[in-house]
């Protein structure tokens, strides 16, 4: 085997091993995933309390509220992406790994999405139900969250990587990441609305898909350089 090939195959094996480690951590911290879900539900439930319980109005704002809450929940779970690794020195080791850093970042985002994105997508229709969304809209909501959350994780990775070790990091991440995620929110909530008003949600969802692909290609590299900068 030529060294190049050997290197590649071992790089793949390493990626798998890294994913397994991250998933093990997710499993050990499974209460965290539950917490994200509960936070999600609480935020969604705050709204009827804040804005009043008129069912027609709730049906109108339902999709948007669930989406905003999903965005906030995904954002609040971001510190787990890198912060603990940064604090305990694992991040230094990741940067010093012979593995390409962007790949490592991608793997960590994948694990993060499995731990938060999928649960959120499963939970979203349940919460949508509370607002009286119809079944088409619920499907679209769930699918949208499923496609949107990886974008949130990836853009969030860039944001957290940039703010590692800075004071007020948590809020700063929100500041950097929320505006960048507005397209996801608009497309996602727009899809629900379109589904509810009988127009197809296809256009919205395919735009979301395009956004996902773009982010998948670009964000890991941006996050990797951000990590290097933060450790300097």
């Amino acid at each position: 085997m030529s060294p190049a090939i050997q290197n590649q195959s071992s790089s793949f094996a390493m990626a798998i091993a890294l994913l397994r480690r991250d998933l093990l951590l997710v499993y050990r911290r499974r209460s965290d995933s539950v917490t994200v879900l509960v936070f999600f539900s609480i935020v969604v439930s705050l709204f009827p309390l804040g804005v009043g319980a008129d069912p027609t109005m709730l049906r109108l704002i339902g999709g948007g509220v669930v989406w905003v809450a999903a965005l906030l929940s995904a954002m609040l779970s971001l510190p787990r992406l890198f912060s603990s690794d940064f604090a305990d020195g694992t991040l230094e080791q990741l940067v010093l790994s012979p593995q390409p850093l962007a790949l490592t970042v991608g793997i960590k985002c994948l694990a993060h999405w499995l731990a938060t994105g999928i649960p959120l997508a499963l939970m979203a229709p349940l919460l949508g139900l509370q607002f009286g969304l119809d079944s088409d809209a619920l499907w679209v909501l769930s699918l949208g969250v499923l496609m949107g959350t990886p974008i949130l994780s990836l853009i969030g990775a860039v944001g957290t990587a940039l703010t590692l070790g800075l004071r007020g990091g948590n809020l700063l991440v929100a500041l950097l990441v929320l505006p960048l995620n507005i397209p996801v929110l608009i497309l996602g909530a727009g899809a629900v609305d379109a589904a509810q008003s009988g127009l197809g949600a296809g256009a919205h969802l395919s735009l979301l898909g395009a956004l996902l692909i773009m982010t998948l290609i670009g964000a890991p590299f941006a996050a990797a350089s951000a990590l290097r900068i933060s450790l300097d």
Partner: protein
Amino acid sequence: MQVNWFKYAAPANFFPLAGKIYPWFYVFAALLAVAGMYIGFFVAPTDFQQGEAYRIIFIHVPAAWMSMFLYLVMAFYASLGFIFNTRLSSMMARAIAPTGAMFTFLALWTGSMWGRPMWGAYWVWDARLTSELILFFLYIGFMALQAAIDDPRRGDKAGGVLALVGAINVPIIYFSVKWWNTLHQGSSINLTRAPSMASIMLWGMLLMALSFWMYSIAVILSRVQCVIAERERRAAWLQHIEPHTT
């Protein structure tokens, strides 16, 4: 040796140049502003629909233009600084951000001042307004990130990454916001924007825009001078190791 000394030297050379030229831009800015204001307040006729209030347009529109233009320039410099590691570009980006944020704020503020008489509300969730607001958040994010980082080198690089990501995102945000608003039922208040702008008004606006532009250059140059001066203390003794390393 490996050290790229012009990297340190360039800002030092730029410093006196910036110092020499920036006062002139203040002068240009003032002259153009006087001309623009004159046209705006004395030459342009009173609008039969909007009365005198419409004259706010001579500040509002140029400010809105500058806010968007400056973001592009800032992102350009920041990414240049990040990709080619040119220190001066990063300093320029750092110097542009506050001015850009200021113009964004000015556009928002004059717009909402105008909105009160026009629409009866200080704010409506129109696509253009919303994207201007998001632009404001992006500026603040950039500035907050750089303010949170003490080490200037790290701050420059981090700002570069953020500006790059932001610059790719801005068109996406812009279109999605536009789309968001047009997809929904039309907002109940129709924005009647002056349909065919009188050419005299256009002139006034152009003059004001030019004036804002000159002002931006002046402010940015003087600010970048401060940034250089601050780092010069460091560069001063960095020169000390130069003879040993080359």
